[in-house]
């Protein structure tokens, strides 16, 4: 596959970073100022007795809760349960969304058949499915994964279809002029042309997957970060709530970064700054 050559050599990617690397670093440090500053402020306010910190616990108490959860193994247990649900729902959603999107993108008849229904489904807030899914699929894993999958599938369907429809007809014509057709045309031209949009769709889908896993776990779960939240609510443990939220943030960001990193070798051509030649 010619894409393999894209993987080789990684020396041209620095082009945009060549300019103000130090300045950029300093600017990104600026972004840390607000949350860290607020945390320090709150910590001192609570310690000095200016605020009680009962409903909004100071960072030290959240950190203590986190380390406690980590120490007794609960953190890993709940994070793993949630990750497994997101992974399963995301995988199913990607599969369904990609297949349907590719089908609709490839054939006008399929699009006429599928698109109105899927657009209609998209208008339903996916959480509205929850009671029905519980009725159909039970209260356990299946209904949760189905809910996540449907939340993931729809934006990926839309993104895949949009990406295919946006491929420049003129580029496809070049393929025709070199006598490419069918599978070769799809592999050598359509696939790489669609990839950037598709990755964006995957990221949107993953983000929704994390959104829906919370909803799914609110429906009733005995483990998972969503359960941790519900549990904290019932027992009045705000530090545990914030801890769970923080873990959501870290995992969501980490999985997104993983996705971006996985796609990066194939999208290197996008990263280079235009007109570096002067």
């Amino acid at each position, binding site marked *: 596959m010619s894409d393999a050559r894209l993987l080789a050599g990684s020396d041209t990617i620095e082009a945009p970073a060549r300019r103000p690397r130090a300045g950029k670093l300093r600017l990104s440090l600026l972004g840390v100022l607000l949350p860290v500053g607020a945390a320090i402020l709150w910590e001192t306010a609570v310690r000095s007795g200016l605020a009680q910190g009962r409903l909004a616990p100071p960072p030290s108490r959240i950190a203590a809760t986190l380390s406690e959860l980590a120490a007794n193994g609960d953190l890993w247990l709940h994070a793993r349960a949630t990750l497994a649900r997101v992974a399963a729902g995301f995988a199913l959603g990607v599969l369904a969304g990609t297949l349907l999107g590719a089908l609709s993108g490839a054939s006008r008849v399929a699009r006429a058949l599928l698109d109105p229904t899927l657009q209609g489904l998209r208008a339903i807030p996916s959480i509205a499915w929850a009671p029905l899914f519980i009725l159909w699929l039970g209260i356990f894993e299946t209904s949760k994964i189905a809910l996540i999958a449907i939340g993931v599938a729809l934006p990926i369907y839309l993104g895949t279809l949009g990406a295919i429809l946006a491929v420049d007809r*003129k*580029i496809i014509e070049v393929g*025709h*002029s070199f*006598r490419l057709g069918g599978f070769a045309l799809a592999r050598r031209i359509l696939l790489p*042309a669609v990839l950037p949009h598709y990755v964006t769709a995957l990221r949107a889908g993953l983000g929704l997957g994390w959104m829906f896993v919370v909803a799914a776990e609110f429906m009733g779960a005995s483990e998972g970060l969503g359960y941790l939240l519900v549990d904290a609510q019932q027992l009045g443990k705000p530090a545990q709530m914030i801890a769970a939220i923080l873990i959501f943030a870290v995992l969501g960001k980490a999985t997104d970064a993983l996705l971006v990193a996985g796609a990066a070798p194939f999208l290197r*051509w996008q990263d280079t700054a235009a*007109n*570096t*030649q002067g």
Partner: protein
Amino acid sequence: MLSFEHVAKTYPAGAQALDDICLGVEEAEIVAVIGASGCGKSTLLRIAAGLDRASAGRIRVDGDEIAAPHPAVGIVFQEPRLFAWLTVAQNVGFAIAHLSRGAREARVASALESVGLASHADRWPRQLSGGQAQRVALARSLVARPRALLLDEPFSALDAFTRADLQDQLLALWAAARPTLLLVTHDIEEAIVLADRIVVMRPHPGRIAAILKVDAARPRDRLSPEFEALKREALRVLGLGRRAAA
């Protein structure tokens, strides 16, 4: 080598783009087709490229009827149409992916050398200027060694200096491999600089109004009296005399 036999094209809506085009292009000949926009010259080229079908008549390359893109015929479009996800070298090697790696790389290198872009092999298309991108497109088509190359207003998007450069470069490439060139242009001077014969077309429907022969040796002097005379003749056939004088 390329023969157009009573080629006609009528679009489904009823508009007649081409009517009874007959033309023979010789081996290694350079023929330019000029005419106002809407005279069907690009349609003619697209049919020859196998990207469009004639409503009547046929185009043959070495006796072979063209019904789909033909291996002996290459095309360069008005825009470079490079693959943004491939490097310059990978773009040029696109059409010869079936060759062994060594053979492919050798041919890509020599094609890039011949368009003066050997040092740009590892660039991405978006890092190229318009003229460079079009040179890559030229190399990408020539690397497959077509016996005939069709060019659809290939330099019309470029500035005058770059255009003149590329015209020279095209002539040099032609001199090296001597493919048959069929060039569609709306630039009369470009036609006179490059072509052995100039086919002048008129619209509604697209027909051949005249075929002018250019006998002057290359490289041609744009300031010579012969050049001027040919330009006048072409403008007259196109019916642009008065407007051109303004």
